[in-house]
C-alpha cells in the first residue's frame, strides 16, 4: 500500500545525523541513578547488601561525569536532545562546566554520605528503601544540574521532592513528621510557583528550551518577562532558603538522621541556587537586570540574618542550618553582580558549599553521637575526649566562614573583587557593590562568631552548662564499629576540602572559564544546535 508522500514544505523536525555513543555520558548519570533506585526498590526484600549496589551505581555515575567534565573543559558545552527531535521540540540535556562540575560534586558527596549513613543504621539490616531513595535523590539533582530545558528542570525538582520526602520521614519519629510537613508544604508551594512561571513563560515565548529562550526573550514584552523572572526568583529563593523565605530549613533539617540532613544541606539548597544562576543570569539576563535591586537586598539580608540565627541557636544542627542559609546569601551576592568575577564567585561558592555544608552536618552528627545530645547546652568537654573531631569541626567552621587558606575563602575573594570592580566601573557606581562587599565581610565575621561559640560550648567547656567547673571531665563513650566508618567518611570529605583549599588554582581557573559560558552563552546555544537561526 503506497501512501503518497506529502509534498508540503514542512520544516525539518527530526535530527538526521548519527549520535555518537560518547555523547551518552550526559544522559547516563541520570539513567543510572533512576534505574539503580528502581532495581534496589524491586529487590529490597532479597538484597542483603544495598550499600554495595548503591555505591557501585554512584561510582558508575562519577565515572560518566568525570568523562563529561573533561570533555566540556576541552570542547565546550555538550548537548543531547532526546528522542531524535530537533531542539526546541525535544527535551535537551545540556552541560556546561558549571553543571558538569556540580553534578560531579553531588555524586562524590552522595558516595561519601552513603558510607557515612551506616552510622545511623542498626546492625539488624531491615529491608528498607533508604539507598533507593538516596539514588533517586541523586538522579533528581543530577537531572536538575544537567538539563537544558526549564520544564524538565521542574520535573527534576519533583523527583527530588519525592525522594527527599521519603528520606526526611525515614525512621518515623513524631518530630520528623513535624519537619516533613513544613519542608514538604513549603517546597511544594515553591514548585507550584515555578510551574506558574513556566506557564506564563510558555504563553509569552512558546518555548521552554533554555537556549531557545535566550534567543527569543529579548524580543518579548519586558514587563511580562520581569513578572516571570520575579516568580522564578521567588520559587528558586524558597528552594534555596534565601531570606525571607528561609524558615523551613532550620525547622526541618535537624529532624531526620544526620546523614539525611547532610545530604539535603549539600544537594537541595544548592540546586535552588544553581537554578537561580541558570534561569536568571544565563537565560533571562534582561529581566534579572530589572530585579537586581531586589536580589541585592535579598543577598544582604540573607548574608546577615543567616549567621545571626546561628548565633542565637543552641540546637547544634539548627545552628548549622542557619550557617547554610548564610552561604546562600553569598551566592545571591554573586548573582547580584553578574560580571565574570561575580558569576565565577557564585558558582565556586556553590561547589564549595556542596562539600563544606555536607561535612558540617556530618561532623555535627558525630558530635551528637559522641555526646548523646542534640542541644549544645547539654554538650561539652568533647575536646578532652576526641581531639580529632574538634579539629575537623574547627576546620569546617573556618572553611564555611571563608577564612584563608580554606576552600570557602576563594569564592569570597572572587566576590570581593567583583564587588570592588563594580563599585568602580559598574552602571550604578559605588553603592550596591560596596554594600555587598561589606555584607560579605560582616557575614564572615558573624559566621566565625557563631562557629567559635559552638566550638567553645561543645569542645572547650569542660561539661554541660549545669556542670560545676570543679567536676571531672565527663567520660564519653568512644565510637565503635559503624561510628568509626562515619568518622572516616567525615575525615575523607574534610581532607578533600582542605586539599582543594590549599591548591585552589584548578577550581579557580575552572570557575572563571565556566562563568565565561554563563555571561556569554553563545557556545551554550551553539551546542544545543540553535545558533545561526533567526527566531
Amino acid at each position: 500500500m503506497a501512501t503518497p508522500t506529502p509534498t508540503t514544505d514542512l520544516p525539518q523536525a527530526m535530527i538526521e545525523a548519527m549520535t555518537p555513543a560518547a555523547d551518552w555520558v550526559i544522559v547516563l548519570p541520570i539513567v543510572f541513578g533512576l534505574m539503580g533506585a528502581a532495581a534496589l526498590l524491586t529487590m529490597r526484600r532479597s538484597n542483603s547488601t544495598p550499600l554495595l549496589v548503591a555505591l557501585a551505581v554512584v561510582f558508575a555515575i562519577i565515572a560518566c561525569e568525570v568523562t563529561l567534565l573533561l570533555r566540556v573543559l576541552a570542547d565546550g558545552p555538550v548537548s543531547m536532545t532526546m528522542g531524535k527531535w530537533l531542539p526546541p521540540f525535544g527535551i535537551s540535556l545540556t552541560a556546561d562546566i558549571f553543571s558538569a562540575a556540580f553534578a560531579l560534586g553531588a555524586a562524590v558527596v552522595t558516595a561519601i554520605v552513603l558510607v557515612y549513613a551506616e552510622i545511623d543504621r542498626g546492625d539488624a539490616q531491615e529491608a528498607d528503601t533508604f539507598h533507593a531513595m538516596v539514588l533517586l535523590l541523586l538522579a533528581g539533582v543530577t537531572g536538575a544540574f544537567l538539563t537544558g530545558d526549564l520544564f524538565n528542570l521542574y520535573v527534576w525538582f519533583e523527583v527530588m521532592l519525592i525522594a527527599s520526602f521519603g528520606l526526611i520521614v525515614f525512621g518515623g519519629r513524631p518530630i520528623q513528621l513535624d519537619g516533613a510537613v513544613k519542608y514538604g508544604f513549603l517546597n511544594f508551594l515553591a514548585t507550584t510557583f515555578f510551574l506558574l512561571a513556566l506557564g506564563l513563560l510558555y504563553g509569552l515565548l512558546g518555548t521552554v528550551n533554555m537556549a531557545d529562550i535566550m534567543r527569543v526573550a529579548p524580543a518579548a514584552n519586558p514587563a511580562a518577562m520581569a513578572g516571570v523572572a520575579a516568580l522564578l526568583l521567588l520559587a528558586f529563593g524558597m528552594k534555596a532558603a534565601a531570606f525571607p523565605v528561609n524558615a523551613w530549613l532550620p525547622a526541618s533539617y535537624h529532624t531526620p538522621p544526620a546523614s539525611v540532613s547532610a545530604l539535603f544541606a549539600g544537594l537541595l539548597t544548592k540546586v535552588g541556587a544553581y537554578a537561580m544562576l541558570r534561569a536568571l543570569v544565563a537565560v533571562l539576563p534582561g529581566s534579572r537586570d530589572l530585579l537586581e535591586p531586589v536580589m541585592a537586598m535579598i543577598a544582604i539580608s540573607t548574608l546577615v540574618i543567616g549567621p545571626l540565627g546561628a548565633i542565637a541557636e543552641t540546637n547544634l544542627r539548627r545552628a548549622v542550618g542557619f550557617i547554610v542559609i548564610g552561604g546562600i546569601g553569598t551566592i545571591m551576592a554573586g548573582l547580584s553582580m553578574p560580571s565574570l568575577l561575580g558569576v565565577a564567585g557564585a558558582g565556586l561558592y556553590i561547589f564549595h558549599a556542596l562539600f563544606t555544608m555536607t561535612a558540617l552536618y556530618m561532623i555535627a552528627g558525630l558530635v551528637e553521637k559522641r555526646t548523646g545530645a542534640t542541644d549544645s547546652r547539654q554538650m561539652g568537654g568533647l575536646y578532652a575526649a576526641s581531639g580529632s573531631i574538634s579539629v575537623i569541626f574547627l576546620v569546617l567552621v573556618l572553611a564555611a566562614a571563608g577564612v584563608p587558606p580554606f576552600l570557602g575563602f576563594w569564592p569570597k575573594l572572587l566576590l570581593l573583587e567583583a564587588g570592588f570592580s563594580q563599585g568602580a566601573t559598574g552602571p550604578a557606581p559605588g553603592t550596591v557593590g560596596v554594600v555587598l562587599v561589606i555584607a560579605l565581610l560582616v557575614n564572615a565575621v558573624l559566621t566565625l562568631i557563631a562557629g567559635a561559640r559552638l566550638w567553645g560550648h561543645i569542645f572547650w567547656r569542660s561539661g554541660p552548662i549545669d556542670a560545676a567547673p570543679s567536676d571531672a571531665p565527663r567520660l564519653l563513650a568512644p565510637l565503635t564499629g559503624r561510628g568509626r566508618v562515619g568518622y572516616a567518611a567525615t575525615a575523607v570529605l574534610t581532607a578533600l576540602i582542605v586539599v582543594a583549599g590549599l591548591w585552589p588554582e584548578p577550581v579557580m581557573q575552572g570557575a572563571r572559564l565556566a562563568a565565561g559560558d554563563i555571561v556569554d552563552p553563545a557556545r551554550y546555544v551553539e551546542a544545543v544546535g540553535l545558533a545561526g537561526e533567526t527566531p
Partner: protein
Amino acid sequence: MNTIIFRTIAPLIVATMLVFSVYVCLRGHNEPGGGFIGGLIGAAAIGVFGMASGVATVRQALRVDPMAIAGFGVFLAGFTGVLSLFTASPFMTSIWLYLPIGETTIPLSTPLFFDIGVYCVVFGTISAIALALESDREEEL
C-alpha cells in the same frame, strides 16, 4: 463497606477493571488511553478488592510487593530508553519492529514497553498507597 452485596460483586468488578486497565493501556498509543490512566484503573481495582476482602488477602493475591512492581516499571521504562544507544541515536529514540503474523502486521515498539513501564509504576505506587490506607494496623509498607 463489608456488606454481602459488595463482597459478592467485588470480584466481578475487580476482574473487569483489571482487564479494562490492560485494554486502556494498550490502546493508548494512537487513541485516548495509555499507561498512566490504565495503571490508575488497575490500582482502583486493587483498592476495591482491598475494601471487600481485606488487605492481607489482596497482598496474597498480588504475590509481589506493589512497590517492587513500581520499581520494575521504572527499570523497564529506563531500559527501553537505553536501547536506542545501539541505533546511534539519542536517549529515548523509538525503535519499531513490524512483526508480520499471518495477514496482519503487529507493530512492536519501545514506546509500547515504556508505556507498560508507566503502567507498572502507577499501578504499583497507587496500590501500595491504597493498601497502606486500608490496612487497620501499622504494617510494613
